[in-house]
């Protein structure tokens, strides 16, 4: 196989050809097949992975409920982390666990004090997730519970709406 026909078509690496220590490039062997430079492809893939990891985090996971139609607001702010209270079919869920409205204040206080002890940034903040057709009498237990448990920041989850639409 010393004088194989295939050898004339062998792939010459562009890195090897440009090496200063022992270049592979030969005057008599011209590269007939070129290699794809995959480094830029790896770079692009890495950037895509990092972008997807950052932008599709699990922060909104407890808010995701297909049965709820959130209201729209044009002056909405970026949603930050907090204790998530969801109202769905007249039932109250604190961090995805169902809580009766009568003990909502106690459950919220317990959850908030646990976050305060840990020094968690979510402490003192509540995110209310409710359907846009809910009446205020259903929201009232949550707002009362927040007032009782020293939660000053109440955030209503909304769909951002472009101004003028």
């Amino acid at each position: 196989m010393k004088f194989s026909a295939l050898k004339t078509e062998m792939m010459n690496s562009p890195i090897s050809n440009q090496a200063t220590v022992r270049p592979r490039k030969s005057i008599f062997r011209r590269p007939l097949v070129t290699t794809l430079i995959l480094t830029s492809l790896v770079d692009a893939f890495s950037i895509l992975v990092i972008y997807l990891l950052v932008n599709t985090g699990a922060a909104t996971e407890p808010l995701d409920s297909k049965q709820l139609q959130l209201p729209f607001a044009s002056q909405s702010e970026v949603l930050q982390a907090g204790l998530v209270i969801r109202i769905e079919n007249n039932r109250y869920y604190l961090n995805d666990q169902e809580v009766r409205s009568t003990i909502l204040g106690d459950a919220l206080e317990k959850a908030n004090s646990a976050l305060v002890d840990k020094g968690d940034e979510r402490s003192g903040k509540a995110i209310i997730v409710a359907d846009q057709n809910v009446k205020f009498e259903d929201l009232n237990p949550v707002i009362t519970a927040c007032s009782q448990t020293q939660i000053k920041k109440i955030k209503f989850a909304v769909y951002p709406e472009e101004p003028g639409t």
Partner: protein
Amino acid sequence: MSRNREENFEINLLPVISILAVCISFLLLTAVWIKIGSMDVSQAVGPVTAEQKPNPPSLQIRMDQGGRLLLSIKDTPKMNNATLTIDRTTDGIDWDAFDRAVIRATSKVPELKTVLIFPSAEFRYRDLIKMMDGMKKKGLPDIGIAPL
């Protein structure tokens, strides 16, 4: 050192590309693309401090049993306790009249920054958000909601 040893070598990038491609596919499939924002409200909690400061001027919005809105400006000598009533239309709240009333209030009392909403039990959540949204648009950032 062997003379035949390769000084130049290439890393095989194909497995790296395969892994990254699998990662991208997985992330694209599991991504949540719905953006959710928040409408923030700062509630006053806890006991009143010993140092009694004068209350800043505030716009108070109440709802009566007939679904009418009652707007009044408190704690300002310019329009103290002046109340404006906005009647309900067949479609619900007359948002145009409400907007005009708020614009009039902010033009008469430019230092007005605080709004306190007293919703009725029947008040819809979407109307509450729309009201707060309108307030923020008109430069009234400090909004509070009073429980029933």
